[in-house]
């Protein structure tokens, strides 16, 4: 299996604070990678660098050995960003547009009914505005908008954050179905271990801006890595 994205020696600082420190990671085609770690460990920054939304200070990101993001021009960056569909943490729906306009934004050819069906939405909600729908529905709309452009890689930034347990289970099941059906390459940032067990193949544990553990989902429970074990079991280090 060839890597879609190859991240090597990635470093990123914000005002002299090192957020990412020498991150190396491969993302393979049709793989569902979960990036887990404590709040502030650099998960979101890493995915923003991977998708090209954020510039990195050092290292490189290569896409399928076709191009690299290091020293790339605006055109390559824009081309790179368009390969990603992103479900943002708070859905990031456009407040001034209704659900239909949010989903089909700039994409007149979108098969809206097929997309609605894929994310479990009813067409009756299309005229509604984001402020008038529940958080779970906002996530579904965000997901619909993320997949409408047929992205090569789907990034899910904490897809179950802010949802009640039942809605979390529903979203996890929906994502599992979607990932399996469309054979999408996905990167999921999450604190929610049930999301990880539900649909991830590979897991990367990020700690202090570095990949502390990387492996198959089956090896996650057997790990001897103390920091990872504490994270999974919700234990505070003594």
């Amino acid at each position, binding site marked *: 299996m060839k890597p879609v994205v190859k991240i090597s020696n990635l470093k990123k600082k914000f005002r002299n604070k090192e957020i990412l420190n020498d991150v190396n990671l491969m993302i393979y085609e049709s793989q569902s990678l979960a990036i887990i770690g404590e709040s502030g460990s650099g998960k979101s920054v890493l995915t*923003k660098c991977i998708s090209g*939304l954020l510039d990195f200070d050092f290292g490189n990101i290569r896409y399928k050995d076709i191009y690299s993001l290091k020293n790339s021009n605006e055109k390559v960056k824009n081309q790179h960003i368009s390969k990603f*569909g992103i479900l943002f943490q708070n859905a990031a729906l456009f407040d001034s547009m209704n659900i239909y306009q949010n989903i089909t*934004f700039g994409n007149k050819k979108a098969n809206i009914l097929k997309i609605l069906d894929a994310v479990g939405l009813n067409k009756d909600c299309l005229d509604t505005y984001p402020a008038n729908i529940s958080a779970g529905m906002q996530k579904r709309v965000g997901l619909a*908008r993320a997949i409408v452009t047929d992205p090569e890689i789907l990034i899910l930034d904490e897809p179950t954050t802010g949802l009640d347990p039942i809605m979390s289970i529903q979203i996890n099941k929906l994502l599992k179905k979607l990932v399996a059906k469309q054979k999408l390459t996905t990167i999921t940032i999450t604190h929610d271990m049930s999301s990880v067990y539900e649909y991830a193949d590979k897991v990367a544990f990020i700690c202090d801006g570095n990949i502390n553990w990387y492996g198959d989902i089956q090896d996650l429970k057997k790990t001897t890595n103390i920091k990872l074990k504490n994270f999974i079991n919700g234990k505070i280090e003594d």
Partner: protein
Amino acid sequence: MNLYKNILIFLGLIGNFFYSVMDSLGYKLFFFFSCIKSCVTPKFYPQLLLNQIFKIGFNSLPVVGLTALFTGMVLALQSYTGFSRFSAESAIPNVVVLSITRELSPVLAGLMVAGRSGAAIAAEIGTMKVTEQIDALKTLSTNPYNYLIAPRLIASVLSLPFLVFMGDIIGVFGGYSICVHVLNFNPNVYLVNTFNFLQFMDVFSGLVKASVFGLIISFMGCYHGFHASGGAQGVGLATTYSVVSSSILILFFNYLITSIFFSL
């Protein structure tokens, strides 16, 4: 030895300060030219431009109109207080029309629109920034400069001269109504004194100022909105910075443009 070390630290501080000022100025200039570039390179959004012209131009008309009306009225009363002391009441129409067209209408309209639309631009874009809507635009192959900044920049550069022109008419009418109805001036003489004295350059200089102020207002709103961070507090700060910096820049550029026209 200690003195030498202290001098070095002092020089280092000055260097750091100078470096950060130049760095920030350079970044703002870069952002400014990126904004200007987005106004002249595709993709264009005519519908958004019309919406912004309506929001910035048409919706600001009542507040600018009221400001101009009361300013014209006050100017007529105050001028009368001074000019009647040396029997120069006939100069009041000239003073009112010159003050309104050259100075008060552009500056007051600029300050009003900065408070109203500049703040709205910063708050709207700032909210989009902190809720990741701008990132979402990028993933949908939409350039946020073309989509968010260009329509606002063009709309305010076009709308402000229109607002100022309307302000000129309303302000002069305010002065006229006070002089005719309160101070018992002859209406025909007042109008003749107003229009005989008025020159094209008086109105034109005001409209040039208005365009520059429009650019300042929308640029500062977009800049501070685009760099908002940290949730609601960050958006609040972006709004405040936008209004304060546009107001100061409007006053500064008012002097600069006045001195340029003065030397012509």
